[in-house]
């Protein structure tokens, strides 16, 4: 298995397998890590646009991780064990350079503690995956995620073939 991360596995053909905006991922993430309610401390964040567009965004665990590369104190590092970029909180100075560098905005500064916040996969048992009622969050890697996309693409071909 390649580098792990949380993937958003929606099925556009099935209304029940699309993010349903319930914010449970944020609530359970913050509860797991900080034992409080506060979505702004969540390491996965739901972005809602108009026309019903909702997508949960979290760390992609980039191969050549810009957050880690730019960190001036070495607070962001990659322990070999699970391959996920991790924050050493006592080294973090809250400069937010990682926040600027992340291509998807998946690192934030904790509004309470002031240190970098990012997904740590809950040590291998991600709570957002466990609690997502639409079952659209999965622990995955780039290969599996790509296969999911491919399958979606081929399904759409099949659908248009049936219509035509």
């Amino acid at each position: 298995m390649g580098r792990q991360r949380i993937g958003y596995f929606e099925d556009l053909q099935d209304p029940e397998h699309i993010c349903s905006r319930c914010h449970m991922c944020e609530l359970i993430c913050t509860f797991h890590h900080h034992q409080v309610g506060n979505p702004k401390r969540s390491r996965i964040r739901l972005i809602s646009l108009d026309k019903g567009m909702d997508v949960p965004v979290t760390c992609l665990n980039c191969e050549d991780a810009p957050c880690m590369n730019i960190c001036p104190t070495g607070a962001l590092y990659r322990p070999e064990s699970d391959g996920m970029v991790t924050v050493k909180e006592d080294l973090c100075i809250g400069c937010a350079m990682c926040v600027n560098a992340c291509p998807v905005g998946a690192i934030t500064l904790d509004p309470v503690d002031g240190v970098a916040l990012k997904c740590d996969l809950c040590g291998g048992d991600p709570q957002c995956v466990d609690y997502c009622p639409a079952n659209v969050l999965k622990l995955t890697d780039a290969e599996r995620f790509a296969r999911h996309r491919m399958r979606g693409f081929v399904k759409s071909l099949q659908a248009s073939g049936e219509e035509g």
Partner: protein
Amino acid sequence: MSIFAGGYAGQILFVNLTDGSIQVKPLDRAFALNYIGGRGFSSRILLDEVKPGTDPYGPDNVVVIAAGTLSGTPTPSSGRLVVAAKSPMTGGLGDANSGGYWSPELKYAGFDAIVIRGTSKDPVYLWIEDGRAELRPAQHLWGQNITETRQLLKEETGDDDIHICAIGPAGENLVRYACVATDEEGVGGRCGIGAVIGSKKLKAVVVRGSLDVRIADPERFKKMLEAYRETLAGEVWTETLRRLGTPNLTAHRQSHGIWGAKNFQRATIEDYEPISGENFRKKFLMKPIGCMGCLVRCKRYSAVKDGPFAGIYTVGPEYETINALAAKPYITDPAIVLRAHYLCDEYGLDEQGVGSTVAMAMELYERGLLTKEQTDGQELVFGNSEALLYFIDKIAYRKGFGDLLAEGTKIMGERLNADYYAIHIKGLEVDATDPRKQVTRALTYAVATRGACHLRGNPYIDEFIKPEEAEAYFGTAAVSDIEALEGKGKMVAWSEDWVTISDQMGLCKFAWYRSRSFPMLIKRGLELAKEAFTSATGLPMTNEKLYECGERVYNVEKLFNVRQGIGREGDYPPARFFEEELADGPAKGCKLDREEYDRLLDDYYEARGWDKKTGEPTKEKLRSLGLK
């Protein structure tokens, strides 16, 4: 720092719009323990603050916005909000309840409730962020629809994460049934609270929070979370709600013949299929939507993809939308229903107010009690969807005949000398169903403290409770017999106190308070609710004490209404339900019997400890609940 170990934000915000002053006061521990939160807070504050005879639109009326106790914690489906004031529709206690994400955000911004007094000279909005609040000018927002108001506020603050509770033009123009919109997803519809807020010249309350809502005992809380999740696994109701949302009830209303269609002249709908829950799913559903942390997800996100109304994206419809905007005016084109729903949402109108009032006018028109000259030249007959859409606009701006429609059925009935056709209780239109088939349902609607309401109690317990359970809880096995009247007063009273807990905690009635198993109702609605409360707040609580908190609040509300002049006479269903039989469908021939209803009402007052003549809570009852 809050004195509470968790759950509560620990502060109440007091705003006086007349002089612009803002005060923050700590939440009192004893007050929290006696009233829990949400509707408990709002009802008690209104009892203390609003004197008898207060003008609902005057500066002395008070608006209370209160978050449920569990809002902001990860308790599933706990994000419900109560917005309350003396109602311009009933003259009694008014409150509206909405879901979505606003209530948790108020907690993250540091407050459990907001108490708003006075009247502003110019339009303002209230900005709240992390324990601070200020009033800001809102002249530029006045007159804007709900979506535009939200967009302008997001642009102005440069912040997409703000949560907005706003009124539309209907609230500004004092349409008596104007609602309050919380973000895109929630609407506090009933009792005309939007109009009260409009009378205060308050356009919106905007919150942004990044403070923690603490959990006193995380381990115990997690256990509650797991246990709650397990209760959903085998629940048929959950599956149904996710698939169809509340519109699943359309099938029930049709098969039982209890729609209340055509202003309660018809019980079933001839061309039913197009407005069925199944058809709304098939044609318009984009996906289910869940309120904060909801594992059930009964809300709908719908889109109209083709036809003259293509391009409508909306949260909804609910069953109530279909009841009000389809069944009542007898319109069966689902795209029209969604268009009407969209307009009501944008103008900030309660759909039940609109549907009921237009339907009543349609009946008056067909009976010759209204003429074309009076109705702006509109052919106001049942099924005329153009007239419905036309008048939604006129109601919101109080133009032409819309000015009278904007008053609701009660006042329209008085003005046109047509009281009989105004189907309301205490001034609030009858929603949900026609209760003529089931007298306990009629009782529940009629005694509801905010006026006709199907969510103030749960009269369906007799459909599934087992005789031994009935015996244990209500003292007689007869409660399990749907035909029997014995013990039903007690059953209705119990169910009212019990669902009041949901409105205090901020728990959703569908996710927590619906099941076809009585032990499950107890398990979720009392046992797990108590667990959530205790583990989140760290305050001691038992099932019995929690139930008593529900009962206390119900008595406070009754006391409020009695003081405002609403006595026993206010606890009766409309005359039509006694006079006319259901005209069609499987329940054809059913009507209420006055003698039987009187007996049931006596039984209910007795179970409650209320005076049978006046409906007033007795001194002994009040004392037993610690109320003087």
